[in-house]
């Protein structure tokens, strides 16, 4: 895992490839899932819809089918009932007119001459005695009679029985026709009342023979076969409410299996003696259910479908073997009145589903159900009610059972094929997707390789360069930024190569140059040092000269009348400040001046000024203005000659007998009178800077003052007043004046020390920019 991560993080190509793949895969997977889901949903929906419509169609078809069966079945049953009803009403007619007909019959048997209606063949009833024991005999018709008759031995001797048989013979007109009219008639017959249960039966199947064989010759029909019926029928005839509910007295018995093994149902149309309000017998018909049942059972919807007939009590009337097996129905044999009933109830099936279906069918009139029995479709329809023997509704039901897989076979087959096809489609889609992804991967590989080839080439080139192999050649094809980068790289690489190749040569060259230069520098240094020494020596000389020229203290102390103190401090070795005190006769010349700048040139000019002043003083010139004018000319010319660009300030004072006169522009002269008041004598108008122009005559003026004893005069250069402290604050004229005021009473020397002390205190650590010179003259 670590290796894979390392691989990814180290390769741009792999990153690009991965990115491509992830994008493609995500997109394709998302689309695929979406489409497949939609497709599935669509197919499922279609199938469900189709299923529903197929079910609906099957439902309507099957119910329609059952309904048809119901109709056709009922047609037959109704026809049988109608058929019997006709016969019954005819018989009732006869019963109603029985007494009159009886009279008619008596007349015919009594009178030999008069023929009656009963003599015609149609009504002829030849009764034969048939002995079966020594004592007993029954009466029956012979084989050739069209309608069979039977009088049981018990009433064979009763003439009323014979009379009844004969009178009922009137039915002969209709019996055959009516019998033929309904194909389902097995036989039609008349049974007399309970007291005289004589029988007339069509067709003539020699009932005697069958009774004889069964040893039932003593048959009393009502007593032996249908014991309860008479009482029920009687109820109908005497209950108007019942008659309202059931318009016809006709009742239908439960189906049973006949002697010949046929399923038969017996219908009765009871007769009533209205004169005596008594049961008068009944007309009956044995209806073969075979064709009816066949019609019902013969349902071929699908191969394994079947139908059956059941009644409202859940008893099976007819069911094919397939149904019996499927529903696990058990039939029990019951014999009632000589008739064999097979009773099997659907709801007695051990199968709970069948029980459920049974109750469903019993409780509904009609229905279509797919849920009660697994994999079966159940459709049922109720026939209109038959009247049972106790005048209640006997509703028969036709039920069709169709296996689901058979009726939905086509649909199921289609659905399966759709499913398999959709599975195929899904698979093929997946295959296409995989193929697509595979192609996408190949393309991504190719693309990422191409796109990153240039980058990798660059990286390789950079590696080479860093390994000091400068001969890189990159054939970058693209013209995009990477290609540009590559070209720049190549240029850089060749530059680097040149540099490194030439570097050594250049270094060697340079080293040689440097060595040469170094040697030159060393030589020059030596020279400079030499010069410096010389200069130092020269400066040393100049300084000494300067100091030597200043008036010595010895001399200044010997001056009568004035207590003089002086001070000079140059900033460099040689200064530009100048003062002098010259004794000329009885006068004293005091000069003070300041050459612009400082250093050797200023010092030289200062010396020149001193010499010039001294010379002048020796010439005997006493006019100070002349002196200044000449001094200016001399200085101007000399300064020009030595090609210096400097000037100087200069003030010349002459002192004689306490009178002071001064010329020249310099700092103001301070005069502190003996009472402490300080005057400042401005010299601005007394001249112009010396050496600036040749002629300054127009600017020279003389100023006078007189000293009294105790007065102090201070001459100074601007080095004092323009000295600054670290905060750039000037000592200033104010500072000087203030200092003077504090010490004017002291000696000149003391005053000088005092003022200097205060000035230096003011300056503190600050730099001293200018030369400092001061003369203190106190009038003695």
């Amino acid at each position, binding site marked *: 895992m670590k290796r894979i991560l390392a691989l990814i993080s180290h390769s741009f190509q792999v990153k690009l490839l991965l990115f491509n793949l992830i994008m493609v895969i995500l997109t394709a997977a998302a689309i695929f899932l979406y489409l497949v889901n939609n497709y599935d949903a669509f197919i499922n929906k279609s199938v469900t819809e189709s299923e529903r419509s197929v079910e609906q169609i099957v439902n309507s078809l099957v119910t329609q089918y059952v309904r048809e069966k119901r109709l056709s079945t009922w047609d037959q049953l109704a026809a049988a009932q109608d058929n019997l009803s006709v016969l019954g009403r005819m018989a009732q007619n006869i019963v109603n007119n029985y007494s009159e007909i009886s009279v008619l019959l008596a007349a015919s048997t009594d009178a030999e001459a008069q023929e009656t209606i009963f003599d015609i063949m149609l009504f002829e009833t030849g009764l034969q005695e048939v002995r079966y024991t020594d004592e007993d005999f029954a009466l029956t018709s012979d084989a050739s009679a069209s309608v069979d008759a039977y009088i049981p031995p018990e009433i064979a001797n009763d003439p009323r029985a014979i009379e009844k048989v004969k009178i009922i013979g009137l039915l002969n007109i209709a019996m055959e026709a009516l019998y033929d009219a309904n194909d389902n008639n097995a036989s039609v017959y008349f049974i007399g009342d309970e007291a005289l249960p004589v029988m007339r039966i069509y067709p003539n199947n020699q009932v005697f023979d069958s009774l004889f064989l069964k040893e039932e010759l003593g048959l009393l029909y009502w007593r032996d076969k249908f014991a309860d019926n008479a009482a029920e029928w009687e109820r109908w005839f005497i209950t108007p409410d019942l008659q309202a509910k059931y318009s016809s007295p006709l009742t239908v018995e439960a189906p049973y299996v006949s002697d010949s093994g046929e399923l038969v149902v017996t219908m009765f149309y009871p007769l009533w003696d209205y004169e005596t309000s008594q049961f008068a017998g009944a007309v009956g018909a044995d209806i073969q259910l075979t064709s009816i049942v066949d019609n019902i059972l013969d349902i071929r919807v699908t191969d394994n479908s079947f139908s059956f007939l059941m009644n409202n009590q859940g008893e099976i009337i007819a069911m094919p073997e397939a149904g019996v097996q499927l529903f696990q129905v058990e039939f029990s044999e019951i014999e009632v009145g000589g008739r064999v009933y097979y009773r099997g109830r659907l709801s007695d099936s051990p199968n709970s589903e069948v029980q459920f279906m049974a109750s469903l069918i019993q409780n509904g009139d009609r229905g279509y159900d797919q849920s009660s029995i697994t994999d079966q479709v159940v459709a049922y329809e109720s026939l209109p009610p038959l009247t049972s023997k106790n005048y209640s509704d006997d509703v028969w039901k036709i039920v069709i059972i169709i296996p689901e897989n058979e009726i939905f076979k086509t649909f199921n087959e289609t659905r399966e094929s759709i499913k398999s096809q959709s599975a195929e489609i899904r698979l093929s889609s997946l295959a296409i997707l995989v193929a697509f992804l595979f192609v996408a991967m190949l393309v991504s590989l190719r693309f990422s390789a191409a796109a990153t080839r240039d980058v990798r080439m660059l990286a390789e080139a950079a590696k080479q360069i860093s390994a000091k192999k400068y001969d890189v050649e990159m054939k970058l094809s693209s013209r995009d930024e990477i290609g540009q980068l590559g070209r720049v790289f190549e240029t850089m690489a060749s530059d680097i190569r040149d540099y490194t190749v030439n570097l050594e040569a250049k270094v060697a060259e340079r080293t040689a140059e440097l060595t040469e230069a170094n040697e030159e520098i060393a030589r020059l240094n030596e020279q400079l040092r030499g010069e410096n020494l010389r200069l130092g020596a020269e400066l040393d000389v100049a300084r000494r000269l300067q100091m030597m020229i200043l008036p010595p203290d010895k001399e200044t102390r010997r001056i009568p009348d004035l207590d003089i103190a002086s001070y000079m401090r140059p900033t460099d070795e040689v200064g530009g400040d100048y003062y002098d005190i010259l004794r000329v006769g009885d006068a004293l010349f005091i000069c003070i001046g300041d050459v*612009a*700048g400082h*250093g050797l040139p200023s010092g030289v000019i200062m010396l020149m000024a001193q010499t010039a002043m001294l010379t002048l003083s020796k010439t005997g010139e006493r006019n100070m203005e002349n002196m200044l004018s000449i001094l200016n000319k001399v200085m101007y010319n000399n300064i020009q000659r030595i090609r210096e660009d400097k000037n100087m300030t200069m003030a010349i004072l002459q002192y004689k007998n306490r009178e002071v006169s001064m010329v020249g522009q310099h700092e103001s002269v301070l005069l502190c009178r003996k009472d402490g008041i300080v005057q400042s004598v401005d010299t*601005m108008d007394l001249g112009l800077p010396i050496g600036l122009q040749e002629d300054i005559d127009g600017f020279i003026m003389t100023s006078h003052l007189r000293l009294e004893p105790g007065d102090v005069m201070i001459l100074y250069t601007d080095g004092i007043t*323009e000295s600054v402290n670290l905060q750039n604050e000037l000592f200033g004229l104010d500072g000087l004046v203030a200092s003077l005021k504090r010490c004017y009473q002291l000696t000149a020397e003391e005053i000088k020390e005092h003022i200097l002390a205060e000035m230096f205190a003011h300056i503190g650590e600050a730099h001293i920019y200018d030369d400092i010179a001061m003369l203190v003259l106190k009038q003695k």
Partner: protein
Amino acid sequence: MAVQEFKGNDYLVEYDENTHTVTFQGIMRLKTSNDYAPLSELLHAVYDIACKTKLVLTLDFRQLKFINSSGIHALSRFVIDIRTENRSGIHVLGNPDIHWQYRSLKNLSKLWPKVQVDIG
């Protein structure tokens, strides 16, 4: 014009074309006259322009707190030079609160009357 200003750590001299004024600011303590040569060049150049445009050059010293003797000498030299040319005069503005200006600027006027000095 080539040089419009002359400056150092503590001072600034600049020429404003629109007002034809050279303004001095700060403290000038250059050691020698040679060090003040660029100032002289500047002054000569702007004086030339002023003369050519018939306008008066103004030198404004009101913000110049201090200038040493070499500097004053350079200014004096400049005035003497233009006195020799004798073209238009110049106008000088000074600050009465700065002590050196009273004396030195007055001298410029003495050197050449066409130097009009206004202090305060």
